């Protein structure tokens, strides 16, 4: 398996009022191979979200190098970065971030609108993905009328429409009850198994992290521990107990 993500001395420093600085990420070296299912875990304020944001090109590091598919992208322009985000990356957020006044279908279509896909193709792919997350009967529902679990499934469908190489999930179960959370994790696991997408899931809860294959522990902006999961929790088999 080739290396998808590689960082060298990656740092992120937030300047605060006065001369105070907060080091959110401190000279981090990291490698993630294509097809891996990785959980980044750590207490709040540990820098795990900052790491995910930089890896997901939502933010830029203060210093260090970031190689995505072997290319150093920290110096890329906003437009080039936007292109990578759109084509190679999918995002699932804790707060779902659907556009409430749009329908399920319109929300899922959104990433494709920023691509050169034809109308016909946009509809076809979007419906296929909605079918995959089991919401075909909710196609024209307004996003605001869905339950939390349904919203997150729409978000997953939206993350998948451009067939990204990698999916970033930032606390995807954080706003959900355990049953809905289980369904979401099961989706991610099935996706990983069946389609081979690389998945990075950020969480502060061990039972979520254990659904991944590898866990990176972050503490005070540094990688504290990087381990393979011994007894991987397969939702389809073990169920999901909070």
């Amino acid at each position, binding site marked *: 398996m080739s290396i998808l993500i590689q960082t060298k001395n990656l740092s992120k420093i937030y300047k605060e009022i006065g001369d105070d600085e907060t080091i959110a990420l401190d000279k981090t070296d990291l490698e993630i191979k294509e097809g891996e299912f990785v959980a980044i875990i750590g207490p709040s304020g540990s820098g795990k979200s900052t790491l995910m944001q930089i890896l997901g090109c*939502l*933010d830029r590091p203060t210093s260090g190098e970031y190689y995505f598919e072997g290319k150093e992208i920290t110096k890329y322009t906003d437009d080039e970065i*936007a292109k990578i*985000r759109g084509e190679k990356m999918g995002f699932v957020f804790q707060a779902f971030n659907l556009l409430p006044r749009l329908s399920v279908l319109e929300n899922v279509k959104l990433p494709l609108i920023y691509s050169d896909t034809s109308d016909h193709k946009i509809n076809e792919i979007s419906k296929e993905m909605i079918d995959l997350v089991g919401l075909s009967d909710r196609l024209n529902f307004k996003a605001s009328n869905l339950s939390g679990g349904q919203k997150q499934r729409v978000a997953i469908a939206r993350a998948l429409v451009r067939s990204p190489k990698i999916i970033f999930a930032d606390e995807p179960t954080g706003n959900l009850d355990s049953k809905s959370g289980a369904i979401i994790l099961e989706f991610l696991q099935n996706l990983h198994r069946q389609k081979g997408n690389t998945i990075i899931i950020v969480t502060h809860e061990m039972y979520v992290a254990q659904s991944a294959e590898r866990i990176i522990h972050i503490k005070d902006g540094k990688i504290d521990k990087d381990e393979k999961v011994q007894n991987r929790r397969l939702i389809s088999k073990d169920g999901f107990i909070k």
Partner: protein
Amino acid sequence: MRLKDTFKMSIIGLSTHKSRSFLTILGIVIGIASIMLVMSIGQSAQQLIVGQIQSLGPNNVFVLPGREAGFSAATLFLDSLKQKDYEDLQNKNNVPDAVDVIPFVSGAATISYENEVQTKKVAGTTEKALKGFNLEMQEGDFFSSTDVDFKSQIVVLGGKVKEKLFGESTAVGQKVKIKEKNYKVIGVLKNKGSSAVSMDENIILPYTTAQQYITGTKHFTQFVMVASSQETLQNMIKDTKIVLRNNHNIDNPDKDDFSVRTLEELASTIGTVTTILTILLTSVAAISLVVGGIGIMNIMLVSVTERTREIGLRKAIGATNKNILMQFLTEAVLLTITGGIIGIILGTLLSFIASYAVTAFAGLNFPFAFSYQGAFWGVFVSSAIGFIFGIFPARQASKKSPMEALRYE
């Protein structure tokens, strides 16, 4: 990303806050409506004036006495047009292109019939005025060239004069008194209403009679020269000037004691006035557009802040800075163009009502005119305002970092 999708998004964006969007564009609506109204009414006024001037006959030229003479300016040498001038201008050898020369002697006089007394304008002229000014008889006849030659003591009354003196009863055949002398009424003119050639309020009689008994002078207040065609108009003017300068012993055109006015000059003088008024009123309306534009910028900035999360999400899923810029800019321009179109409709409606009211209540022939120019500028200016005042908020939106945007609560 295609234009169609940008449009769709902008419409969804705007329709989310319908009442806010409407209030935002109110300034633009009012501004564009006023511009439409002013331009439309200005155009109607212009048409009214041009129409009246046209009714004077496009081949007519006015010869007026006096230096620096205008239709209104105070002047010297007001008695410069004499009988000899009149005769020489009529001579085909002198002015071959003149079909007719209609002389005028004007003044005011008190006219009475039984106990009714009125002070009215008096116009002394010849039988040619009837045809030359498209006058029509209500009853009786106009006077003839013989009446002019013999200084007949007869009058033709304007329709309004007749109504005031005689009411409903017949005027023709009756005697009226002007300056202690009796005149026989031989005809009454049809009322023409407000127009440049209205003689409704005039007493018309042979100029010879007017000179002898009413003004007591030997000069004319005006000659109306009718050219055979538009093409010969300039030649006729040239010949007329030669005759008059010759008669008055003038070598230097600057020393002319008369002036020759064409309708075109008259029209352009009046046209300038309406144009200046239109520009003035339009600039006042333009101020409301600037105020409206600032309102739009304000609301767009609020909207950008409110939708920070949406912007972040769009960026996260692949929107470029330009995509975001275009979305917000399209919203602003769509908003102002909508305002502009509503303004054009409103302004047109108002000017239609205005022209209807003027026609109905002032008795003027004030035609409704749709100002294509106004409509064009309305659309152009409103979209320009959307662009100018939308670009700053749209840039603010496009510059947001996706992470900061997503973090925003």
